[in-house]
């Protein structure tokens, strides 16, 4: 079969999987939060969340009506064929999934305010590329809802404040966001680089599995410390009070300009939807985030 068609079919599957079934790391974290939450209001929210996840999975329908703006991350082997046709295939897949799953049409022209009704448009779906060795193609889909995206924060901090500045910025961002991003959230933090790099890293960070701490022990400790800190705010599930404001914190970093200290915070709602598949040159397809057995 044509590579284009394979990519399109895989991407439709990924979109369906992502919006109807959360990966195991997220489900496990929510289950644990439900067991450990002490606030009655918080527990009621987590129970509704778990019931909703189960229902969506059973019925094969979207967990949340805001199926988000569609982002793709493509990690392609330099020797894979027809890479120039992948973006077109992803566009087609997004249109198909919008009808078939269905997804809510979420692509609006910011000038005319017209909705394209098929989730595609200028730079949407947004595709990020990484070229690696080999000949396989790995595709990740990240549907990102507006409730959590709308409280994203970027700070160009004073380099002299260093990590202390970063910690304060993150805590303040979480308190400012309050109930808006549908907590318990996953916090993606990007530090260093330019403004765009920090944001890019923060968004990429929310894709890291919750049970996989940072490979750098200093950052792993900072992630743990920040998670504990934001859970002291008492904002809790859906902002109705409790000790689970965040399920996890992931930090990614880049080297910075001596005079710049960018810190980006990206929130992902509890409905932390993502799905990844690898297409091998043999044509074999492996789904990495979801068990299709």
């Amino acid at each position: 079969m044509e590579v284009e068609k394979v990519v399109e079919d895989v991407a439709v599957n990924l979109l369906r999987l992502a919006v109807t079934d959360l990966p195991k790391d997220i489900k496990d974290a929510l289950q644990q939060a439900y067991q450990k939450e002490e606030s009655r209001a918080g527990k009621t929210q987590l129970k509704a969340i778990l019931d909703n996840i189960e229902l969506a999975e059973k019925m094969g329908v979207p967990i949340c009506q805001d199926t988000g703006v569609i982002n793709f991350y493509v990690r392609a082997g330099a020797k894979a064929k027809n890479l120039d046709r992948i973006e077109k295939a992803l566009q087609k897949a997004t249109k198909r999934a919008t009808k078939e799953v269905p997804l809510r049409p979420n692509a609006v022209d910011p000038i005319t305010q017209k909705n394209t009704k098929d989730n595609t448009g200028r730079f949407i779906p947004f595709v990020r590329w990484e070229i690696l060795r080999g000949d396989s193609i790995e595709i990740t889909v990240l549907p990102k809802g507006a409730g959590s995206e709308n409280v994203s924060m970027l700070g160009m901090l004073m380099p002299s404040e260093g990590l202390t500045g970063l910690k304060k910025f993150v805590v303040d961002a979480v308190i400012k966001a309050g109930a808006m991003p549908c907590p318990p959230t996953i916090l993606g933090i990007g530090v260093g680089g330019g403004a765009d790099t920090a944001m890019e890293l923060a968004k990429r960070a929310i894709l890291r599995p919750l049970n996989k701490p940072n490979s750098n022990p200093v950052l792993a400790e900072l992630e743990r410390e920040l998670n504990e800190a934001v859970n002291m705010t008492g904002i809790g599930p859906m902002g109705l009070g409790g000790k689970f404001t965040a399920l996890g914190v992931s930090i990614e970093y880049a080297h910075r300009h001596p005079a710049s200290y960018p810190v980006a915070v990206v929130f992902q709602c509890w409905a932390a939807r993502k799905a990844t598949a690898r297409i091998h040159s043999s044509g074999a397809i492996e789904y990495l985030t979801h068990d299709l057995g």
Partner: protein
Amino acid sequence: MAIYKLKSPIISEEDIRKLNVNDILYITGIIVTMRDAAHRRALELFKEEKTLPIDLYGSTVFHCGPIVKRKRSQWVVIAAGPTTSTRMEEFEDEFIKNFGVRVIVGKGGMGKRTADAMKKYGAVYAAFTGGAAVLAAKAVKKVKKVEWLDLGMPEALWVFEVDDFGPITVAIDAHGNNLFEEIQKKAEESKPKIYKMLGISR
């Protein structure tokens, strides 16, 4: 904290005044979805002394932009979770005053203007778990009708017949209490303790 099963529309102000923040509600009857565009249009029609396509007196308004699918001649609700209520803050006090809405359902809470109107006219704001769209859709037994589809699927006015729609948590009651604001205030107050733990000096 108490659990109530309410029938909507709720004509009696007394039924609303007995509710307190943190109470859990389940609603059976009619609810109407309205987002910012529908709020704006309804208020414009009111100003022009024109009637709305549905009487909102005693009604439950749901801040929601659902995914709805047409199957033959019937609309079927696929997913219908709440949307962020702050977008409706600029309209809601007039809305409660002019139309006599009793229950507003949404997510994320609302501000002082809405809370004041709720106290004055007898209404409550209740939070439906954000993102729990299938749980909400499951409670919808029937789409009674849809109006203003020209605004687009999410912004249209959907009239749902629901059975045990919930759990929804009373977050603003008719006595002036605002749960989201209280929690937000406590979160602000927790800053010094958190800063200290993280070794932040100011």
